[in-house]
């Protein structure tokens, strides 16, 4: 790929999605753009670039989608979900005892495994949630992955990565080669196409936000911008989940780590669902 073509695409990606594409990722760019060119009946990258430079909106969108699609698995890393079940959820139910409602947001949810994992946890806890109203919202910049998320159909390979067999037999049905999620779980999650760099406030207020393994793709100012945006939609005592390799330290003054709860962050000057507080 020509250097000025690479620069053109990386600028587009940065503007549209915040994704920072360094030169060492040129191979990745080429490997994801080639199928895109072929799909459009173009001969190769040069032809695709020619179309792109005419500011073809559909091609721009397709390129952003192709580059921002990342892998996802059910119960990724296990621990954050155990933590959600055993620590975050009980505290959330205590903090919202009067309102009896809460909202969870999975930012950049890709093909839906994370929000569905949370939905399964909440389904398993149904007895404690009797009379409660809650929403799980999954957003992603890519309409393609959201199509897959809404369909809720996963390959054998995908359902094996992280999902306990008990949940697989309980909440999935095998259809041909795929495993399709139970309509009751599917109905618990709403999917929306949304750009994390845009205004997040129309999404409404959330009590728990999952934004795991997203910031790693952004540069410092973009990380700060996204964290600021999240702080605007997170309730004062809400909590934010980041990925294992991510932090707010030195990036955003809106959040602070919750002591002894790895990966969980609270709004500065607040105790984040009292997670850090000693048991009463």
């Amino acid at each position, binding site marked *: 790929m020509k250097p000025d073509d690479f620069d053109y695409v990386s600028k587009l990606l940065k503007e549209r999605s915040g994704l920072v594409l360094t030169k060492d990722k040129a191979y990745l760019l080429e490997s994801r753009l080639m199928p895109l060119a072929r799909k459009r009946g173009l001969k190769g990258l040069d032809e695709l670039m020619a179309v792109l430079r005419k500011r073809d909106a559909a091609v721009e969108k397709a390129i952003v989608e192709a580059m921002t699609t990342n892998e996802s698995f059910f119960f990724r890393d*296990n621990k954050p979900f155990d933590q959600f079940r055993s620590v975050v959820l009980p505290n959330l139910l205590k903090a919202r005892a009067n309102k009896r409602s809460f909202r969870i947001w999975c930012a950049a949810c890709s093909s839906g495994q994370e929000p569905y994992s949370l939905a399964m946890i909440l389904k398993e806890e149904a007895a404690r949630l009797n009379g409660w109203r809650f929403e799980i919202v999954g957003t992603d910049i890519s309409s393609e992955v959201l199509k897959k998320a809404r369909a809720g159909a996963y390959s054998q390979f995908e359902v094996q990565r992280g999902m306990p067999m008990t949940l697989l037999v309980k909440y999935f049905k095998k259809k041909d080669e795929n495993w399709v999620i139970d309509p009751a779980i599917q109905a618990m999650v709403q999917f929306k196409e949304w750009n994390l760099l845009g205004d997040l406030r129309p999404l409404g207020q959330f009590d728990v936000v999952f934004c795991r393994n997203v910031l790693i793709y952004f540069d410092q100012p973009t990380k700060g911008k996204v964290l600021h945006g999240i702080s605007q939609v997170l309730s004062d005592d809400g909590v934010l989940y980041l990925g294992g390799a991510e932090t707010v330290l030195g990036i955003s003054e809106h959040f602070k780590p919750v002591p002894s709860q790895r990966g969980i962050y609270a709004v500065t000057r607040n105790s984040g669902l009292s997670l850090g507080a000693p048991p009463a």
Partner: protein
Amino acid sequence: MKSCLIVDDSKVIRMVAKKILQELSFETEEAADGQRALDLCKDHLPTAVLLDWNMPVMNGIEFLRALRALPGGNAPVVVFCTTENDIEHIQEAIEAGANEYIMKPFDSEILQAKFAQVGLITG
């Protein structure tokens, strides 16, 4: 050291599994059918069993039921690893006392994820 008994009638599968498990610091033993595996377990119980379903002499589910009936036989963590990939088989495995279930084909990543899930390794 943690030990894992690999039970599969395919020598190739046993080799692949052995390599992955050794990288995860498991001591491994092998058996080509359920009866041979049961004899080994009567002698000493492993920490974990990676278990194929369809095998000659004694199949995986028969072995599992016999293992769970042994004194101390509830201790080993049993992970099925089989081409049987329908809900009925998984359900039957759960009822017989399996701890997890891997559908072949598998790779190191899936095996690690499943072993982490049942607490055999730290994920």
